[in-house]
């Protein structure tokens, strides 16, 4: 029994599969929530890293570069354990789900920063020069001229990372988050049938990934290539 739902092991594999589907779907919802939460953290933190890394003062840019490298070059599991166990020793106790979303966000923010940088550099230099000639401040140039043109260029890459994040969510099971794989494992542990739940997890992941890729593509096609229109 899990989430107050029980399974049927008496009437063959199909009946078993049908009976555990709602339980796995509960896990899938957690997986989606964790992916989205991690994605949002990565989006925001990545943008902050991008801005800091490109700061004119080395006092700001160097630490940001080091931090981003550190985020990117250490395993997700290490970061996760660190947030979950080490911080707890210092009195910072975060719920498992929040810890997981943070760890995913931190890890992926470093990758996002690279995507942002590439998107920003792809905006022609003349745009910056025109803004400069019109006496826009550096900040306004970034928010009104560069960013609206960079975003449509980076949507496909960001979408790929969203899919990647969702595929990393099972790592959160080690800190007790009840995402889909963890749910399947618990069912397996209790029924001694791993084949059916794990196969279903694979299939559900495939469906999830295909749907999110399709959504990202649809968004990519919709967005005007010239930039987010400011009327």
């Amino acid at each position, binding site marked *: 029994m899990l989430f107050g739902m029980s399974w049927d092991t008496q009437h063959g594999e199909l009946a078993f599969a049908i009976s555990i589907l709602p339980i796995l779907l509960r896990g899938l919802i957690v997986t989606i929530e964790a992916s989205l939460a991690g994605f949002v953290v990565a989006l925001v933190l990545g943008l902050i890293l991008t801005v800091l890394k490109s700061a004119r003062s080395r006092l700001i840019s160097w630490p940001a570069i080091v931090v981003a490298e550190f985020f990117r070059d250490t395993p997700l599991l290490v970061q996760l354990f660190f947030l979950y166990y080490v911080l707890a020793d210092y009195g910072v106790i975060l719920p498992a789900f929040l810890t997981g979303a943070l760890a995913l966000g931190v890890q992926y923010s470093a990758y996002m920063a690279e995507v942002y940088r590439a998107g920003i550099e792809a905006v022609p230099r003349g745009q910056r020069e*025109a803004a400069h*000639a*019109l006496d826009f401040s550096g900040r306004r140039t970034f928010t*009104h001229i560069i960013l609206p043109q960079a975003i449509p260029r980076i949507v496909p890459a960001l979408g790929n990372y969203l899919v990647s994040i969702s595929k990393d969510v099972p790592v959160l099971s080690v800190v007790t988050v009840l995402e889909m794989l963890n749910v399947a494992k618990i069912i397996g542990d209790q029924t001694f049938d791993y084949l059916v739940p794990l196969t279903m997890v694979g299939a559900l992941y495939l469906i999830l990934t295909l749907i999110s890729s399709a959504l990202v593509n649809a968004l990519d096609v919709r967005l005007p290539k*010239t*930039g*987010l*229109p*400011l009327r």
Partner: protein
Amino acid sequence: MTDPIIRFDKVVKRYGALTVIDELDFTVAPGEKVTIIGPSGSGKSTVLRILMTLERIQGGVITVAGEPLWHEERNGALQPAGEAHLRKMRRQLGMVFQQFNLFPHMTVLRNVAEAPCQVLGLSRQEARERAEELLKMVGLEDHMQKFPHQLSGGQQQRVGIARALAMRPRIMLFDEPTSALDPELVGEVLTVIRRLAEAHDLTMLLVTHEMRFAREVSDRVCFFDRGRMCEEGKPEDLFTHPKELRTREFLKAVL
């Protein structure tokens, strides 16, 4: 003679080991229309880009309307200027680019109204009225709600001119404004610039390859070669009786 609005005093610009502007002395009087001609690599566009504060200088002093452009006076000595000073100085200049550099994600109207609204602090209504007036002046009143990619090159460049004028600069810089245009679209842009040249108080600095046009609109033509001003004079003199050998060779090649 009145005080010059632009003065270059032994200005040096280098890219690494390459000297692009070599101890240039150069002045422009208020309201004067000056055309700069010369072979590519002669530093003519660099002069405009330095004035627009897009390129730093490595030596010398530039004065715009009596104030140093790249320097400010602190403790009685000239120091490299801070951002606040540069922003204040930049207000006096407007620039039209070879590649137009319109903002592709904004309508034509917004392209022109954005800076007056965001930088000068005009209300939306005021900025809009100013933009509409200027777009009417360049003959684009029917295209205000379009995006730049829906316009021809000539129309885009006219938006570029309106956009620069919307900041009410005292000095307009034109960096090869027609070089990126199809030949049949050059005329409409030159017509707009010609009309601007009739305004007495607007100082204009124009880099162009349109020799006939240069001859028509400018008070003075300067021939640049290898980072120096090789020869200057009234257009009728310089084009018909160039004194320097380099000028003669260049004119023979382009005319």
